[in-house]
Each structure stands twice: as structure tokens, then as C-alpha cells.
């Protein structure tokens, strides 16, 4: 069975949804513990792998790709509503 999310780099704090994920879905991936989707997440969008504080760097590809603009709960959808530019 294919994992529903992909962690591109071991340093990443977000993963990519490989299909549409429903709110409340328990997501099993890799060999680690599962996470629960806090809300629905469209395919190819980002999901938080752990709680992120406001102003925390968002790491994807092992690199900083943005900064959270509000606290983000583990399992949340991460996009323009809660994430801004890397330097902002």
C-alpha cells in the first residue's frame, strides 16, 4: 500500500500529500508513528509533520522554503493562509 504522504528530506517539517487527504484521516507513512490530518489537504499540498510556532521556518527539500505566519498544529494544511516568504 502506497504511503499517502511523502517526506522529501529527513530535515523536513512538512510532507507532501500524494493524494487528497480527508480531515481526521490517520496517516501512516514510513516506519514512524502515524499522524492525524487536522483538516482536509489537497493532493500535492503540504501537511505539518509537527506543531510549528508562529515565525518558525518551514523546511521542505531539507531547505527553508518559507516562514509560518501563525501557530500551525501538527497535521494541518500548510499554505498561503499560514505561511509566507522565507525571509518574512
Amino acid at each position, binding site marked *: 500500500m502506497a504511503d499517502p504522504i511523502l517526506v*522529501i528530506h529527513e530535515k523536513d517539517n512538512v510532507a*507532501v500529500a500524494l493524494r487528497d487527504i480527508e480531515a481526521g484521516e490517520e496517516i501512516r507513512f514510513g516506519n514512524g508513528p502515524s499522524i492525524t490530518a487536522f483538516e482536509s489537504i*489537497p493532493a*500535492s499540498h503540504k501537511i505539518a509533520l509537527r506543531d510549528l510556532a508562529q515565525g518558525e521556518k518551514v523546511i521542505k*527539500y531539507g*531547505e527553508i*522554503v*518559507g516562514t509560518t505566519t501563525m501557530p500551525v498544529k501538527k497535521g494541518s494544511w500548510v499554505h*498561503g493562509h499560514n505561511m509566507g*516568504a522565507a525571509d518574512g
Partner: protein
Amino acid sequence: MVDTPAINGYRRYDGRFGIRNHLLVIPTVSCVNGVVNRIGRAVPEAVCVPHAHGCGRGGSRDLTILFRVLSGLVRHPNVGAAVLVGLGCEVSNTKALAHLLEDLGKPLTVLNVQEEGGSLKTAEKAVAAAREHLADLARMERVPMGWEDLFLSIECGGSDAMSGVTANVAIGAVADWLVGHGATVMFGENTEMIGTAHVLARRAVNEEVARRITEMVDRAESLTREIMGDLASFVISPGNMDGGMTTIAEKSMGCIVKGGTGPIVEVVDYGETPTKKGLILQDGPGYDADSMAGFAASGSQLMFFSTGRGTPAGFPTVPVIKVASNSRLYRAMEDDMDINAGVLVEGVSLETLRDDMIEFMVRTINGRATKPEANDMGLFTFMTVHPPF
């Protein structure tokens, strides 16, 4: 998979290896494209590359690129012999090109339409020469080559939301394997590095390479702003946002991940040949067609090309391995796609896909045609800076 698969190619006079043994027929200027097309109809085994360039531009940057690309294609290691069809009065005329084709070490026939008595007589002579060259090429044999003799470039075009998740990640894994085996790997598309200059510069082997990376990406960013004005923000487009990309840095990371994680040893100008082995950046444009010509002029023998929406284009003298980012595209355009990286979301591991891609690459190097080669989808045009006079 064996740790170091055996590969072979055609050893050239300058020490480089070709993984193909093409007869190239190329015009110096668009005015004589018809002659080249006529040769192509008479000698279908020849690789004929009519183009839209050769005259009408005079700025030093455009001239440098024009001469570098035309001579680079003739010198290319996948080319075993060439017929150069000139006119006589063009900017990149055969006499002006001659000093760049010294010590060529391969058969070259040069014909000028204004000296041969017109287009038909030129074509007739060229066809006879082409047939002789083909007979000579058929007698050449492949010999073992090392991975350090391989120079591969990576392009992405017609990208989708999965390009940076599947195809480019898988190509990056192959790139790391290649660099680890001593090969040279290059990628370019400076507009698609915007927002990631610091990431790339940190991987530079020295201060000078870091400075060139930063200068290249900054220039791409200011040029984009200058050309597009307020629309420059659409470099991260509504379509990108719908696809889950939130920032320009995130979008660009999805592009540059195709080069893997190795140290960056050199930045070369558009079409310039690297002097080092390892991971190289080309300071060239994002437009696929122009970018591929720059890679070829630099001497790349092989290319990977990732696509999500589905572009079928290859390059005339260089095998291009097309990598689909999703299974829907792969199934819809199987005639044009070589590899389906969409299997990554269907339970296939990155290691398995990487190994499959390396095996495919080995077969390609050793002579098996890629889809763009088999379909004759080679495309040749190249970058210009200024409008024509």
C-alpha cells in the same frame, strides 16, 4: 544492479566520447535551410538541423552565443562527421567559423551556396559528401568508456505540481549517483533558481563559484522584473499556488532538486564547455528549447527532461530521456515518455525508481533510442539577447 555498470561510446580525437555517431548537417544561416531540408530528404540517416539564426544580429553577446552554439554542435562528441552548409554573406559565415573548427578531428564538408552555383548544386554535392561520411561512420566501433567520460544535463519543462515531488527528486537521486561515480552533471534555467541563490551558493566549492551563482540568480530576478513589471510576481503563478506551492523559494527548490545534493564545482556561461568534472550550473534561460541547445553546445552527450504536463521535445544529436512526473501523463503519452516517476506515489521506493532510471540510462548510453529519438522529435533553436536589426 551492479555497482558500476559498463558503458561504451565512440572515442573522439579530443578524448571525449560520443554515445551516438551522428552525421550532422547544419546551415550557418536560415537562408539556406531549404538546402539542408533537401539533403535530409535524400539522406534520411543524416541529422539535419535547420534553424532561424546566423545573421541580422550584431551585439557582442549575441555573436558570442551564435558562434559558440554553431561550432559547439559541430564539435559535439555525439557527432562523428558533419556537413556545414553556408551561404557566403552571413554573419556566421564558414570563414568566420573556421577558426572555431580547427583541430576538429572528424570529417567535415563545407559548402557555400554562393560559391557552388546555387542551392540545387550545393545540395547535390552535399548529398554525395553525406553518403561518403555515413559509410565511414558505419565502420566506426564502440569502445568501453568510463563514467567520468559522461556529461549529462538536466532540463525540466511543462512542469506540474508533482514535478518537484516525483520526477525532479528521482532525477536528483540519479544525479548524486552520477557525480559519485565521477560523471559530470549540469543543470541551468537561471529563472527557475530565483529564491534559492543562498541554497546553491552554500553548496559552491569556493567563493568565486558562490559569487557567480549569486550574480546569476540576482540577474535573472531583476531581468524578470524588468521584462514582466508587475506581472513578475506571477513567476509564482495562481496555477503554482493551486498545485500547493506557497513561495517562490519552494517552487524553485522543486526545480533545483533535480541536480541532486552535490557540491557545485563550476558555473559556465550559456553553451560554454565546463573545465571541471562534477556538478555544474549553466547560466542560461528557462525556456526548454534554448536551454537544451546550450547544454548540447557545452558538449553534453545525454539529457534527462522531466515534465508533468507532457512535452515530447528532444534534441537532434543528443538522446533525451523523458521523465513523466505522474502516471496519468505517462499513460496518456506513453509514446513520448521514457520513464514514469509517478510510481513514487504508488508505493515504489525512491531507491527502486533511481536504480530503474540508472539501468534505463545505461541502455540509452549503450545505443538504445529514447522516445524523442525514435519519434524524431529533436528540436533546435537557441538563445538570443537582442531583437534582430
